[in-house]
């Protein structure tokens, strides 16, 4: 059985201007030790998918439908108290911006130890301290003991992100959700952090969901890829299939518009237009206004198809 199975998840936000369907019927699953990448533009609903799994949706948002089966429980039905025990223990999350996800007035050591002391009753402070130093070494932070006494502002962005990763790994979670973990970092540090995440998720045998807008990052790290557009998954399958033989026009566009090092043409390929506002989605396929293949058939939202070992939502793919 899959470690996590999300079935027809719908997270809506009931705003003054109307209902925003941030996540509108997403389904995917992830096995132990597997890495799933969720790719899409800002506003595509990828972060909200991650927050929904952790139960971090605040009003006016609400999970209106769907199941999130994690290790035999449906997370949607659990109370906040029960979720609190799971968060940071069985499931942990790495947020995008390391500058804001650490408390600036508490030392790194205290912040790390809190995660252990909260979830593991009966662990002595000394043991917790030792575990924290160990984990800081694992993520490759130099002078780990000295860093335990540091405050976040004394560390660089890359070091802070390592601390955040260490914190997420402390309780050996079964599932790790990383929301744009490297977007705020330089490419050199990004490569280090990505390598580390892949290595650690294999070592700890935990499943990883990587949320990002950069399809190149996803292709280097993930086993499976889900491409999201305007709240819905448009293509979902194994990495090799999706990256090297993309079927949905949006996935094709995303791959095509990446700048390539070994390409001599001057202009870049661009997907025309922008993603429609979730308050004013077009009738039919959400991508039709930006799609070169669209015709009157696309005025109906495409049904789910299984082609070439992956799931794709497009009339034009046969």
């Amino acid at each position, binding site marked *: 059985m899959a470690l996590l199975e999300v079935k027809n998840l719908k997270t809506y936000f009931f705003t003054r201007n109307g209902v925003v369907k941030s996540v509108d019927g997403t389904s995917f699953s992830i096995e132990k030790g597997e890495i799933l990448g969720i790719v899409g533009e800002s506003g595509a609903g990828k972060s909200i998918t991650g927050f929904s799994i952790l139960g971090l949706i605040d009003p006016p948002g609400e999970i209106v439908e769907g199941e999130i089966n994690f290790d035999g429980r449906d997370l949607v039905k659990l109370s906040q108290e029960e979720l609190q025990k799971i968060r940071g223990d069985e499931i942990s999350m790495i947020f995008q911006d390391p500058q804001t996800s650490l408390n600036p007035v508490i030392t790194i050591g205290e912040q790390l130890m809190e995660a252990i002391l909260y979830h593991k009753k009966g662990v002595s402070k000394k043991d917790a301290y030792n575990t924290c130093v160990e984990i800081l070494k694992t993520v490759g932070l130099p002078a780990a003991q000295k860093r335990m006494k540091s405050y976040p502002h004394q560390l660089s962005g890359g070091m802070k992100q390592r601390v955040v990763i260490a914190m997420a790994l402390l309780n050996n979670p079964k599932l790790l959700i990383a929301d744009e973990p490297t977007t705020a970092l330089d490419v*050199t540090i990004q490569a280090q952090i990505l390598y580390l995440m892949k290595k650690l998720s294999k070592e700890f045998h935990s499943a990883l969901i990587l949320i990002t807008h950069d399809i190149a990052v996803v292709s280097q790290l993930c086993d499976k890829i889900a491409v999201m557009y305007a709240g819905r998954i448009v293509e979902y399958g194994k990495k090799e299939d999706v990256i090297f033989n993309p079927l949905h026009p949006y996935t094709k566009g995303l791959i095509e518009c*990446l700048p390539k*090092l070994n390409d001599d043409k001057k202009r*870049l390929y661009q997907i025309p237009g922008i993603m429609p506002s979730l308050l004013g989605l077009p009738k039919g396929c959400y991508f039709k206004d930006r799609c070169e293949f669209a015709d009157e058939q696309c005025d109906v939202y495409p049904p789910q198809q299984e082609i070439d070992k992956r799931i794709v939502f497009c009339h034009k793919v046969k």
Partner: protein
Amino acid sequence: MSQSEVKLLEVKDIEKIFSVKVGTFEKKDLHALNKVNFNIYKGKTLSLVGESGCGKTTVGKVILGLYQATDGKVIFRDKDIAKLEPSRRGDIQKDIQMIFQDPYSSLNPRKKIKTILEQPLKIHTNLTKKERKETILSLCDDVGIDYSYLERYPHQFSGGQRQRIAIARAMILKPELILADEPISALDVSIQAQILNLMMDLQEKFHSTMLFITHDISVVKHISDYIAVMYLGEIVEYASKQELFKEPKHPYTKMLFSTVPDIHTPLATESVLKTGEIQSPIDLPKGCFFQNRCIYKEDSCTMSHPELVDSGNQHLVRCPIVLKQQTID
């Protein structure tokens, strides 16, 4: 650098030293820029590439006048502007415009787009109200801003549209030099391509010159004519785009290339962890600044600071080890 190219801006040995507090009573020098030299040629694009903390933004700010250089010269139209504040630059100021990284903070949230675009014209030109409006409308066509957007406020737009507005504001005075500081790094990949293409189109149309500042070496290929790679406040490699992409020479440039995520290359291996981080620009090492992260390091690298040397074809490299190997080959 062929003879036909006309220098628009010349940066000569600029140094910028900030004094920072390291203890209650102690201050130390932070060397943000160490003798940086380059020329920008009319109608061409120079890209400055490097990690955060390498001084690339400081270069931009010195040229724009937001910082005054500690030493050195910035020559624009035969005038040294390195130590001039914006208010003392007169006419020159309107010919150098900047596009900032974050379109969410660079546009005043309380002003309509119309007002944001009109402001530079009011300050720097004598156009009548009608002429100003015409200028704005014709630029809107070029940049891809719908006329109806002019009555709206910045918060009503997505990141990509805001960056279009920021570009329009920088272009409205038809500046000779545009400084673009990471103009696409805050945007989605699909929008990045649109903005890069737009910038190239505008440059062609208005024959403007550009200094493009970025940390991502994969995007500079499309937009640059020349590329300067910076590390800890100095240029470590300088070459034309073709030269640099054909054969990156400095170990740091090679490292930058190896860490670019690409769908056709697998994730970097264990060795990537050895590449470490950029060091603090306080207390710079005696020898080569890059020595701690360099895989080709030799004993001599800790002894003396290397110079920027031409290795042929105007390809400048600051690494004696690379040059030595080249002569052996």
